[in-house]
């Protein structure tokens, strides 16, 4: 873990990994979407609308996985004072929020032809909407901490907010089990899957593809933050030198 504590060593791995993850992810996710759109059979009950599954499920996984990553980064920041962890948390926020929004939008679009409604305030939908608001709050706090000179990372308050928000993750996961909800129960559990293989297989491709792409975006954003931090540090040094130079003429 501490191998990555050094930004130079992190960059030597992140630089070649970024395009590799990006292009592999994009190709695999597009291939998975194409298979899901044209190769799989329609569902016995839902008909063709079942195809929305192949983007809805990866979006839910990355929306929740993103916040798990932010929470882990927050723990590493608070306990080990890991400099890159604070930057990683900030880099995950925007793609995580994007996937949470995609999950809500694709779910809403899926709900209209199947359930007969765009939106209902059931446990799953409400808790997922709360996750989107948590992301928006985190992004705002991260911006504020960047402005107050946290050298690219996020402030302690932001990290604490990430941990508090993590409480929502088990609630989202269990919402369909605890409460009577319009959303169906989990299909893929420890005991196996209630999705027939004929329908299930492209989901593996889109899950893998979107995850690789997500990782590439996080690396890109971390590299951008590290480069900006370097420029800012240099500017501050120059400003200080200039101020000193004025007071003591050569």
């Amino acid at each position, binding site marked *: 873990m501490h191998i990555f504590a050094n930004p130079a060593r992190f960059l030597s791995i992140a630089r070649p990994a970024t395009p590799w993850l990006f292009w592999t992810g994009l190709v695999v996710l597009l291939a998975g979407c194409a298979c899901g759109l044209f190769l799989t*059979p*329609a*569902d*016995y*009950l*839902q*008909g063709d609308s*079942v195809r929305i*599954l192949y983007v809805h499920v990866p979006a839910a996984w990355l929306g929740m996985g993103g916040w798990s990553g932010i929470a882990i980064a927050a*723990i590493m920041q*608070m*306990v*080990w004072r890991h400099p890159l962890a604070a930057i990683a948390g900030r880099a995950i926020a925007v793609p995580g929020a994007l996937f949470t929004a995609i999950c809500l939008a694709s779910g809403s679009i899926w709900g209209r*032809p*199947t*359930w*007969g*409604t765009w939106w*209902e*305030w*059931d*446990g799953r939908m409400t808790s997922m909407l709360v996750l989107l608001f948590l992301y928006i709050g985190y992004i705002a706090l991260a911006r504020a901490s960047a402005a107050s000179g946290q050298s690219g990372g996020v402030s302690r308050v932001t990290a604490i907010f990430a*941990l*508090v928000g*993590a*409480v*929502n993750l*088990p*609630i989202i996961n*269990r919402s369909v089990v*605890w*409460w*009577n*909800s*319009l959303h*169906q*129960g*989990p*299909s893929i559990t420890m005991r196996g899957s*209630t*999705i*027939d293989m*004929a*329908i*299930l297989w492209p989901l593996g491709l889109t899950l893998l593809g979107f995850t690789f792409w997500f990782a590439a975006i996080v690396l890109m954003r971390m590299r951008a933050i590290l480069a900006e931090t370097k420029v800012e540090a240099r500017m501050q040094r120059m400003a200080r030198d200039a101020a000193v130079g004025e007071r003591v003429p050569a």
Partner: protein
Amino acid sequence: MAMKSKHQRLILVLIALVALIGAGLLAASALKDEAAYFYTPYDAKTKGVDPGKAIRLGGMVVKGSLKRAADGVTIHFQVSDGKASVPATFTGIAPDLFREGSGVVAEGSFDKGGTFVATNLLAKHDERYMPRELDGMSYNETTHQIEGQVK
């Protein structure tokens, strides 16, 4: 010294995390009834819902119970959760997925006779996904009936 403070921070953060998740889960379980999106027929019977009170009723549409009235737009059916069953009626256009043997969430209220008068129907499907051919049944769009042998 540095090692010790790192340990302290780890323990503090872990305690805080456990406390937070515990509090969150407690709050969620306390909300259990309020956060339920619908009543099941068993809930409605045991808790006693006043006639005229707007609620949602969710369960399975009992196989063989769906009857279409002479006017063509009113349907009568039984909603069951395995423990109890209540009669329901609805006038209007039901969603595509509304059919016998599948889930339904009906918005409306009970009348004095104990029949649930729905003002809106939502279809609820379960966690099973499979191709049509595999299930060996076809769905008639006009009668809302499943035709063929159900496994």
